[in-house]
């Protein structure tokens, strides 16, 4: 490893540490129940790990939260990352977003009222606008709260 590379790696580690501490401080300030600050803290842990910090170092940095908790947080952050690209919904999220019962949604697909796309071979998804259209077509008078509308927001 060259001196320059070592310096760059060291800077990345320090930057990742600083970001993690900042995210943790924000998380503690907002209290443990705040979902968004927890998401940010989990992501900062993933970045710190990528920058070369071990689970033990991360745990020590955050006041000894324990390596298993660091591993859990990293796993949470990694699993949250979407396999489905933005603007598309997984089949289960499409059913939720439509506000239809699974049987109604499945019938609509089978009858060609809505078409799935295949963003990755073997992975089915639906366009948000198609799901919204189907929902309005089949349940025009439905209460908005019966649809998981937050899933239809552009990401």
């Amino acid at each position: 490893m060259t001196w320059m590379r070592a310096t760059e790696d060291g800077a990345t580690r320090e930057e990742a540490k600083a970001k993690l501490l900042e995210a943790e401080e924000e998380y503690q300030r907002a209290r443990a129940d705040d979902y968004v600050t927890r998401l940010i803290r989990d992501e900062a842990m993933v970045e710190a790990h990528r920058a070369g910090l071990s689970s033990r170092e991360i745990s020590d940095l955050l006041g000894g939260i324990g390596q298993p908790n660091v591993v859990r947080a990293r796993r949470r952050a990694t699993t949250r990352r979407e396999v489905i690209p933005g603007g598309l919904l997984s089949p289960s999220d499409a059913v939720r977003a439509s506000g239809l019962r699974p049987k109604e949604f499945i019938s609509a697909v089978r009858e060609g009222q809505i078409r799935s796309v295949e963003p990755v071979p073997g992975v089915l998804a639906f366009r948000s606008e198609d799901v919204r259209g189907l929902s309005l077509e089949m349940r025009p008078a439905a209460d908005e709260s019966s649809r998981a509308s937050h899933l239809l927001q552009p990401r």
Partner: protein
Amino acid sequence: MSPAERRICFNLDELINMAGDLMRIADDLRTHAVEDVDARLIDMVADQLLARAFGAD
């Protein structure tokens, strides 16, 4: 005992019920236990069942 490679078949209603149950479990995990990872994993299984129910091979 049937051979291990024998295909196991469910009818459409059974698939729909299984997918619906799994989605409800995932929703409960998200809402009450804040277990996003497990909820996401359960959704992935539901997605596979839904894909079959849609008619995918």
